[in-house]
């Protein structure tokens, strides 16, 4: 309910101004901090207080990225990693959500599979590295597989706990209307788990990047993880830092897209 027709009181206008001021201040500090850090980094490297061969520097990172762009390999490596990450992310999210639905549907199935899921959740997925190479080869498939493994169990557990937490009284209400299990699922369980689905997506953005970069560490011929490993091996720390910076940017972008999706899907009445 909005009150647009009523003009704001002076006190409310003062309050709004204060809010705006605060927002501006926060953003100024955020950007200022970044500029300050980059400036200090550049300065200590330029003054020779630290060895830029070890620490690199913002200008050397920029030059490295420009070099990658010039020889046409920048978008190739970014594309490879992005594809692996997104493929793994979507597979983990879909498989995880559907598995969670199946486990919600059947109490017995859930009881039977519970210990397996708990163990798989605790297992460090990187331990499966050698097996994955033997099973999936040394191509992108292996990395996608690793990414799915890292995200899948988290997605299952996250969604299952959301499905199970469905309000008992609302279930009772639907049952009193004569609802069957499919109707309870589609009218209540799925829509009420939407906020949990979004938060699962946010967690899985991080998981997908862990999976794809870890996968590229184990086996890869291209990608940002490959650049980092290769750069480390030949002591080209400019390359390591450049790839890491690009990674930061991409991960932030992906997270931002999920937040955007949240704003589109979860609106009215949900606070």
């Amino acid at each position, binding site marked *: 309910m909005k009150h647009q027709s009523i003009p704001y009181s002076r006190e409310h206008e003062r309050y709004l101004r204060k809010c705006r001021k605060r927002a501006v201040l926060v953003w100024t500090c955020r950007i200022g901090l970044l500029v300050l850090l980059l400036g200090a980094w550049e300065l200590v490297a330029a003054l020779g207080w630290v060895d830029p061969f070890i620490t690199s520097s913002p200008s050397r990172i920029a030059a490295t990225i420009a070099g990658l762009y010039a020889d046409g390999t920048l978008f190739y490596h970014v594309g490879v990693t992005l594809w692996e990450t997104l493929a793994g992310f979507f597979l983990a999210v879909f498989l995880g959500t559907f598995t969670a639905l199946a486990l919600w549907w059947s109490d017995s199935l859930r009881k039977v599979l519970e210990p397996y899921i708990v163990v798989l959740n605790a297992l460090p997925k990187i331990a499966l590295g050698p097996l994955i190479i033997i099973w999936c080869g040394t191509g992108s498939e292996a990395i996608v597989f690793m990414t799915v493994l890292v995200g899948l169990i988290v997605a299952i557990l996250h969604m299952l706990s959301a499905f199970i937490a469905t309000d008992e009284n609302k279930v009772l209400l639907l049952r*009193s209307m004569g609802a069957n299990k499919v109707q309870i699922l589609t009218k209540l369980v799925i829509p*009420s788990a939407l906020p949990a689905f979004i938060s699962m997506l946010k967690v899985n953005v991080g998981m997908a990047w862990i999976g794809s970069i870890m996968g590229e560490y184990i086996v890869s011929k291209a990608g940002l993880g490959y650049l980092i490993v290769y750069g480390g091996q030949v002591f080209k720390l400019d390359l390591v830092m450049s790839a890491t910076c690009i990674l930061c940017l991409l991960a932030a972008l992906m997270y931002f897209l999920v937040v955007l999706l949240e704003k589109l899907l979860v609106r009215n009445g949900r606070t």
Partner: protein
Amino acid sequence: MKHILSFDDVTYIYHTRRGETVAAEHLSFSLDEGEFAAVIGPSGCGKTTLLSLAAGLLTPSEGKVESGGASFGYMLQKDELFPWRTVEKNLYLPLEIKKMKGDAPRKRVRALAEKYGLGGFLQSYPAQLSGGMRQRAALIRTLAADPDVLLLDEPFSALDYQTRLNVTEDVSHIIRSEGKTALLITHDISEAISLADRVLVLTRRPARIRSTHSLGFSEKNPLKRREMSGFSAWFELLWKELNA
């Protein structure tokens, strides 16, 4: 008057891993068409079990619940409106569940909403409504599929006192003017007296029926009833029976 719902020597036992609890024992009573009955009892005596048995959500361990094919509408303590649906979509929920297609039932629901002061709020979300209006919306949702019997499970107890008196009056007015049969469960004696035609008193768990009283008020308005001379006499009697 014919019986629309009858309990015939009904016993219900809850089973858990840690043991069994007799929630209701040898319950027998019946509800006439168009009647407003209230059930009062000490807290935790199995009142809600009684409603679930009536609605057919639970099957009695012994005895029989007969409803002759009557349909039920269940109203709970909280409104349980779905926050992601507009008020209008919330009101249509029973129609969707019962697969009542077509425009006629929806038109009827909209008319009900219009008649009882929700017309301007159909496109709002539940979070934008006051507690009293939400509960009114919950009642109209309960009426949406045109049930024969309304089962009211302490529908006012989550509201603050002032809202509660107002909503009680609303609900009473709506149920009376729609000519519905209603079974109200409550632990509030004065609520039972101000609303019902007949009051059933339950014992402590396992619930049995201690007594049945026809109140005999000709006044139907709950607030006016509270001012009538017979009110406090009923209150004292029921209070004694509840605590006996």
